[in-house]
Each structure stands twice: as structure tokens, then as C-alpha cells.
């Protein structure tokens, strides 16, 4: 069962819940457990929030793109992209508790959460061009369905 979708939306904070619930409802077709779905929603929420707050610095006219691909082996590949300010030092950004916006009460836990709730995390970014976060997540408790 291969399937694929792409969702593009404006960098409006109200769209955070729309984004994560849309990804969850797409991935529901491979029968994830409740825990797996919650983890998936969380990582979508983290990456989308980062695009809004950091990438677009809370401007509401930027586009955020989520690409979601269900691979054959019950693996979901998720790419979340913005065309915002980009990250100068990705290694530093990924450090637990590092945040460039403490004044906004950011906890600096975003990338750590994405890392622990997925099986693979790749962050590509170019200053002035934008940021792409790619994650792979294995769904273990999938009921086998006839093909």
C-alpha cells in the first residue's frame, strides 16, 4: 500500500492543529497505534511551529509544505519545508535546550522531541533560503492486511 500526499498552507498559527490532524488522518490508513499517532502529531507540530516562529518570524504570509509518503514497509517519510530565514548552525540548533528565542518561552526541545519520536531526522537549511526537515518513522504494530 503506497500512498503519498502533499499539504501546503500559510504560516498562520491556527493552521498548526489543522496540519497535524491532516497528517494523522492520512497515516491512519496504515492502522497506527494511538501512541504512534500522538508521536507523529507531535513531530508535525514541532516542525510546523518552528517554520512559523523561526522560519517566518511570525509573518503570516509564508508557505509551509508537508510531504507525507507511506513507504511499503510501514515506514512513513515526512518532509516539512519552509522558505524562511534558514538556520546558520544546524548542529547548534539541534542541541537539546538550545533556542534562539527564549523571549518567546521556547524550550529548545523541538528537535530533541522530533529525534526521539522518529527513527531518522535530517535537517537541511540555507540562510535566506529556508529549512527542510525530513523524518522517517517506522510503524511497528501494523495489522497485516491482504494486498
Amino acid at each position, binding site marked *: 500500500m503506497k500512498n503519498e500526499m502533499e499539504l501546503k498552507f500559510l504560516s498562520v*498559527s*491556527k493552521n*498548526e*492543529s489543522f496540519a*497535524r490532524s491532516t497528517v494523522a488522518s492520512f497515516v491512519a490508513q496504515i492502522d497506527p497505534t494511538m*501512541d504512534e499517532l*500522538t508521536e507523529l*502529531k*507531535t513531530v508535525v*507540530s*514541532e516542525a510546523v*511551529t518552528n517554520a*512559523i*516562529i523561526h522560519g517566518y518570524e511570525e509573518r503570516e504570509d509564508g508557505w509551509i509544505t508537508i510531504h507525507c509518503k507511506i513507504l511499503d514497509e510501514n515506514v512513513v517519510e515526512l518532509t516539512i519545508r519552509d522558505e524562511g530565514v534558514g538556520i546558520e548552525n544546524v548542529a547548534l540548533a539541534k542541541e537539546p535546550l538550545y533556542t534562539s528565542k527564549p523571549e*518567546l*518561552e*521556547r*524550550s*529548545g*526541545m*523541538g528537535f*530533541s*522531541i522530533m529525534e*526521539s519520536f522518529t527513527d531518522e531526522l535530517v535537517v537541511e537549511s540555507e540562510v535566506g533560503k529556508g529549512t527542510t526537515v525530513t523524518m522517517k518513522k517506522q510503524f511497528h504494530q501494523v495489522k497485516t492486511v491482504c494486498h
Partner: protein
Amino acid sequence: MLEKEFILRDNVLVVRLKGEIDHHEATILRNEWQRYLHDENLKHVILNMDAVTFMDSSGIGVILGRYKEVMTKGGEFVVCGVHGYIDRLFSMSGLVKVVRIEENEEDALLSLGVAS
């Protein structure tokens, strides 16, 4: 959606949350919560997470932020109703080591010396 209930018991502010805490909701929550914390007579906070169905790191941020405000006032910050997925996030983020955690609101109130 996040529903919020703010209840005053003596010098304790009880905050009951229901629904999802993300960045959008965390911003609204912070603004409302801070208005209550401006009250001089108010010292401690009890945060009831029992009905929270989703939270991300923005939720951790808003909780830590209020924790610090209460500390500055010399008050105590107690959280109750922490289970399942929320418990995992509390552990991952280290929040569990910072705030005091009680089983339910009644225990939390008792721990602050308020008869329930």
C-alpha cells in the same frame, strides 16, 4: 482547541486545562494565565493536566515560564493529572524534576495547606 478554567482558592490559583496545547494555544494560555498571576494575593499555582489530550514543546515552554514566575513570587508550583503521553513529555523535558507532581487536585491542595 484548549479550554481553560481558572479557579481561586485562598492564595492558590488552580488552572484546569482541557484539550490540545500547541504553540497557537500556548500563546493564548500564557496571556490569560499572566493576568491572574499579577494578583498580589495569589501565591501558589496548581496546574491540572488531567484532560489534556495533546501537548508539544510549546506546552513545556508555557509551563516552565509560569513556573519561573511563581518561583519569583516565592510560591509553589504543583502539577497534577500527569499521565500517559503527557507523563512521557514531562520526563523527556526534565519538567518532572523541576515541578512538584501530585496525583490529583485534592492532594495538590492539601500539599499547599488548603483544605479541599
